[in-house]
């Protein structure tokens, strides 16, 4: 398929990218926009390493063709989350708990956690374990759960 021009709104900035219509957003971000914080893990929407937010909702960018996206949609990658709000409670919590091991899945975990907390700002422990579905081969699941609980506390503290 020959390449076409697409305008995407990535981390608040309109960006024109040339790609074949079936190019997954993941590869448009990594090779086109040079945003490599979004990771390739499975290419099939199974592991969540490629998670980004599209209009605030977590999306698995490895199975999201660029032709299905509109310039009006707001795409947030890990770089955008960190840039827009370095004190984001999820980032602060991740740092305080010192979650990562190899770190490869963490961008996706953090974005999934941020979206989850927006929907459910005061989750129980069980709700956290049930909601998170991204794979971590190093097994940082205990730390992820701890960090999400802490992030919820931090966000509540900010709100008060």
């Amino acid at each position, binding site marked *: *398929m*020959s*390449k076409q021009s697409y305008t995407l709104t990535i981390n608040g900035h309109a960006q024109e990218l040339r*790609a*074949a219509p*079936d*190019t*997954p957003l993941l*590869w448009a971000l*990594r*090779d*086109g926009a*040079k*945003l*490599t*914080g*979004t*990771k*390739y*893990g*499975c*290419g*099939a929407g*199974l*592991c969540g*390493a490629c998670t980004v937010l599209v209009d605030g909702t977590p999306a698995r960018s490895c199975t999201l063709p660029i032709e299905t996206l509109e310039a009006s949609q707001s795409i947030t*990658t*890990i*770089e955008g989350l*960190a840039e827009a709000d370095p004190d984001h409670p999820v*980032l602060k919590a*991740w*740092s305080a708990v*010192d*979650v*990562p*091991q*190899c*770190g*490869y*899945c*963490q*961008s996706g975990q*953090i974005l999934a956690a941020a979206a989850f907390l927006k929907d459910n700002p005061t989750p129980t422990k069980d709700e956290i*374990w*049930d909601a*998170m*579905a*991204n*794979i*971590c*081969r*190093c*097994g*940082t*699941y*205990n*730390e*992820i*759960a701890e960090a999400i609980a802490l992030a919820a506390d931090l966000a509540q503290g900010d709100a008060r």
Partner: protein
Amino acid sequence: GHLTRRAPVMAYLLWRETRPMSTSLSRRSVLQSGAAALTLFACADKTLAKAAAASGSQSLGVYLSIDADNTITFTTPNAEMGQGTFDGLARMMAEELDADWDTLKIALSGANRAMFNPKIYGQTTGNSLAVQGFGPVVRKAGAAARQMLRQAAAARYGVPLERTQTDKGYVVIGDNRIAYGDLAEAAAQLDVPKDIALKPVKDFTLIGKPFKRKETEPKITGEAVFGIDIDLPNMAIAALAMPAQAWGTVKEPEGLEKARAQDGVKAITPVTGGYAVIAEDFWTAKTVADSLTVEADIADDQAYSTEDMAAAVQSVLTSDDAEAALYKGTKDGADLNQSRADIAQSMSKAASVKELAYSVPILAHGALEPLSATALYTGERLEMWVPTQNPAASVKTGAEVTGLDPKAVKVNRTFIGGGFGRKWNVDFVTQAAEAAKTLPGTPVKLIWTREQDTQHDFYRPIIAGALTFGLGSDGAVEAFSSTIAGQSLSRTWFAGRYNPKAPDTSLQNAPSYPFKSGHVESRAVDLPLPMGWWRSVSHMPTVFFHDSAMGELAAAARKDPFAYRLAHVTDPRAKKVVTQLRESLPAVAEGAIGIAYADCYGGHLAAAIHVSLDGEMVKLHKIWAVADVGMAVDPRNVKRQIAGGIYFGLGPALDGKITLEDGVVTRSNVHDIGALTPVGAPPIEVALIDNMEEAPAGVGEIGTPIIAPALCNAIAAAGGPRIRHLPISDTLSVQV
């Protein structure tokens, strides 16, 4: 055009500090530019000064450089793939150097022969030997450098050495504080002291304390650079067309010329194991690669299915005259070296004899970062950026592919997005070099797909065991015989120095218990399946065999599972972990708790899991572990390594199995290889026995073997079947 030597300044870039790509990287690479291939302990007089003269910063051997502005950089000899030695080894060096931890910088080494892990005979990262092997080396390096800095200060101020002290990057003489950076040049002129006392444990300020890892911030902001993230000017990206077959001779596919003419394709070239399509971006490369159907020829008698391989292993296991490697070690004074005839004699004296057969299937690594490597070939040089556990082999294969002298091959390491042993092999590095060679002057980044990563792994092979226990009238083990059979990694990967009669480290089979008399042997099976090192290697099967048996024997003798194990160990460290585990467990209303104990990688670990059965469905509630790993460089990280190791073993125990038909792997992605998701992962609590005076154990792998036997013991205790063949999903329903 050809790139100059200076162009790829990303060599030592570990993370990007700003977006877009920062230009503030050169200082980082300059820091390293003079690093000479000399260790602090293997250099002639004045060599450090010579090395330093070539450098903008003051290089104190291969591990350490100190800038005039007092920036201290530790170059870690090991790969960082999640295990935490990036931080851990730096901590051990900084403890002895008395460096300021907050400002210390860490760099990843490339291949460097002078970085020699005495426990692994080289620089490879594996077998949980980073802290055990490199730890003492870098502690001595730090201590020697501190001593030399003190000597330099003493000479400058005309005071005896005893009047000098240090404080976080400064030598202190009375009221004077002299920065290490001011002394480094003079210190590098001094002879390296030979006998250096290391700090006593009681004086530690860095070792044994929980610190945030230095690479955490870049890893949570997306700025950490993994192998797949390398981005160089003018870079092309390669995808592979690989055959479905896991071995065999690759044939040229049809349609190559048409594929070469596709938009965006720069070249298509045969590489070892397939064809590389090199294009301007990955999706273009992958789309064209997917349009090629590559096949491999496999001789009829080599077209194995999983069942064929299992049968071949059983045939060797049960043969009366198979060649075997006998265990030669001792275990807490126990004699585990009896001949087959002697152990048969011991068994005949037992009150009863129990024979048990076990097996574990083929497993894939499933590291989340698919294999990726970047290479730039200029005709005179080859430079590579690789997430590798094996830098020396990366250099070697680069030199072989290009015909260059190994000195003209440079390997830069990146963070590794999960290794688990897979990135010890350098097949993907070979392919990247082969691809780059076809486009001189153009950096080529090769990326495997997840399916290729699954279907062209170096697998943990099938291993089967036949165990016989001679029991006393009280049910205690009097005689123990264990034979295991499987493909030998040592025989393949260390072919030049493999001794068929010597104990095979890739099929090690020693029990964690010092049974009164024992016979322990391993039998190598020849099969074409590519096999490799998989987190915890053969400890995973053998701990499963041994401790499942202990659980089953305890139950048959109606003994308490803790008491039964305690009756069979003598080491106080073993007794302590088992006892503390027993004391820490709650009573459970529903289901049952199963336990296991193991002694491996120099540490002791006891673990328990609470399960219940809902019909055929296994439900996991919680896991507990108690470990004695000796000196814990960072107790928080040690606990997490153990928990992560347990999860890494849990997924496969539940549902991990690679299957093949006619040499074709029929599993493809993370959903069918036993990769544990959070839904399948019960919470884990790990406790450590405080034992800082003991030598450190390896902690990256010790957790992995313990969970399968604990889980199968729990299932049996909860009224389920006794499972002796993994995965459990062959017998019961599970959730991974």
